[in-house]
């Protein structure tokens, strides 16, 4: 039986957070209120999404200090500790795209992959910048109008309505369209966290000596360009696009991968 330790931990975290948010509305809990856009932890600590905050600022509105402080706290947390962990440990869309990915493998769709040349992984960074420009032009936080992430989260807290169609669209796009299409190519929030999380200290480490080059990690990784060192070098995965999801660690049968702390002493060895 394959190890699913980190997969389970992530699902517990993702669903647990949604339960807390849901309870805040349904039962008046005060542990974690609001949505990802802006939340309140334990009734005191403000949290806010950095990209949403940037979009609102781009419209020209001077935001309240709670949101600015909240965005700073979140930014520092992922910059120093978590890396791009929001995407795999918090974001509810991750469960949708993971399901699509798993089905792709089961249905052998990966093998028949069409080469969508127009869609590059760097598209998300263009979209991230574009979202800010459109926010400034139209005068409303532009990504928030169609973000499947907050639509899904609000759907769970307040009820979906027709918003469920956006979530289904993402699922179908990732399943039948581009592999890792949403999280790995388009999502500007993921792009933001990729940039923020570049410097974090929690990193996946690779032990080249133990590796048997089975490449299970590369098959399961949603951002497998970050695993360029597999069976080549014993270094950390330092690319900001790594979501620290730990699936590679789960599927590795050789103990060649594991979470570790980024080493600052030896630059060449990371």
């Amino acid at each position, binding site marked *: 039986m394959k190890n699913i330790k980190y997969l389970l931990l992530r699902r517990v975290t993702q669903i647990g957070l949604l339960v807390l948010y849901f309870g*805040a*509305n349904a*039962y*008046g809990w005060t542990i974690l*209120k*609001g*949505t990802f*856009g*802006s*939340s*309140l932890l334990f009734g005191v600590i*403000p949290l*806010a999404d950095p990209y*949403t*905050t940037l979009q*609102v600022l781009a*419209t*020209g*509105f*001077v*935001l*309240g200090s*709670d*949101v600015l402080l*909240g965005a700073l706290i979140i930014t520092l947390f992922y910059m120093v500790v978590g890396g791009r962990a929001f995407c795999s440990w918090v974001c509810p869309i991750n469960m949708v795209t993971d399901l699509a990915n798993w089905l792709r493998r089961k249905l052998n769709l990966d093998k028949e992959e069409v080469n969508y040349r*127009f869609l590059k992984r760097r*598209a998300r960074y*263009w*979209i991230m910048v*574009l*979202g800010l*420009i*459109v926010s400034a*032009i*139209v*005068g*409303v*936080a*532009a990504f*928030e*109008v*169609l973000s499947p992430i*907050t*639509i899904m989260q*609000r*759907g769970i*807290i*307040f*009820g*979906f*309505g*027709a*918003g*469920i*169609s*956006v979530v289904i669209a993402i699922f179908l796009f990732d399943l039948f369209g581009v592999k890792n299409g949403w999280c790995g190519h388009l999502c500007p929030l993921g792009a933001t966290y990729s940039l923020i999380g570049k410097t974090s200290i929690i990193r996946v480490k690779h032990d080249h000596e133990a590796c048997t080059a089975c490449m299970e990690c590369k098959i399961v990784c949603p951002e497998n360009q970050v695993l360029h060192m597999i069976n080549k070098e014993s270094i950390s995965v330092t690319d900001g696009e790594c979501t620290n999801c730990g699936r590679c660690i789960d599927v590795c049968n050789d103990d060649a991968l594991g979470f570790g702390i980024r080493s600052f002493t030896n630059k060449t060895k990371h």
Partner: protein
Amino acid sequence: MANSSNNRRKFMATTLQSVGLTALGGLLWSGYTDEAKAAKLILRPPGALPEEDFLKACIKCGMCAEACVNRDTNIDKETGKQRPGTLKMAKGGDNKLIGTPFFAPRDVPCYMCDDIPCVPVCPSGALDMPSLLNAKKELDINKARMGLAIVHKESCIAYWGLQCDACYRACPLLDEALTLDYQKNDRTGKHAFLLPIVHSDVCTGCGLCEKACVTEKPAIFVLPREYSMGRAGDHYVKGWDKKDQQRVGERNLNKIETKTKRSEESPMDYLNKGVEY
């Protein structure tokens, strides 16, 4: 050498493609977003900034709606259970900007809580607390201007001469925001009309009147103030009211005089010219 110029050409082409696709995406995205925010007949929570600014400022966190539904007073007195909240978060299919709070008084009106739980929780400033503070710096829900109730006379049964004062009795600012005008009913010769009159300087737009209205489709209903109010403009001043002169202030002739093609001619000429519509 040939290779490097090849690379440069490829780089130029892919850059051009990226810029082009980004421009295309930007056009589609702007168009969609502009349409998505266009729904304007929408009632916002108390203290909300003017709609344009509100749409910029709202971070769609839903804390106002959560505070609204979970307030202590939101208990059904008969069943002892929690009632649905006034504030809803716009969903896909509501045809309102998704994720923003609104209320529909015919379903659930605003009950005008004294402590206004929905406003202080707003982290972004989209719900502007200072606008709801009175002279003593206390929260005062009567300062809210969520909308303005208007009466459709032809469907209001009180205007038919039937005895109904449901809206008047439902109004939390009874006899201030909503008064009854007593008039003689000439049809019967011995009854009175009790006509509801809304006063826009007091009405908060809570919608309790709309909720209480007995007609099939409410004859009194709340619209955003921008849509339920007119404006006389600077042409007209109440000469008998000293304060009204202040409203107009120093009249700027350039600003208030109507300028059309006709007004370029002398009055004698254009008055004799006849009118084309």
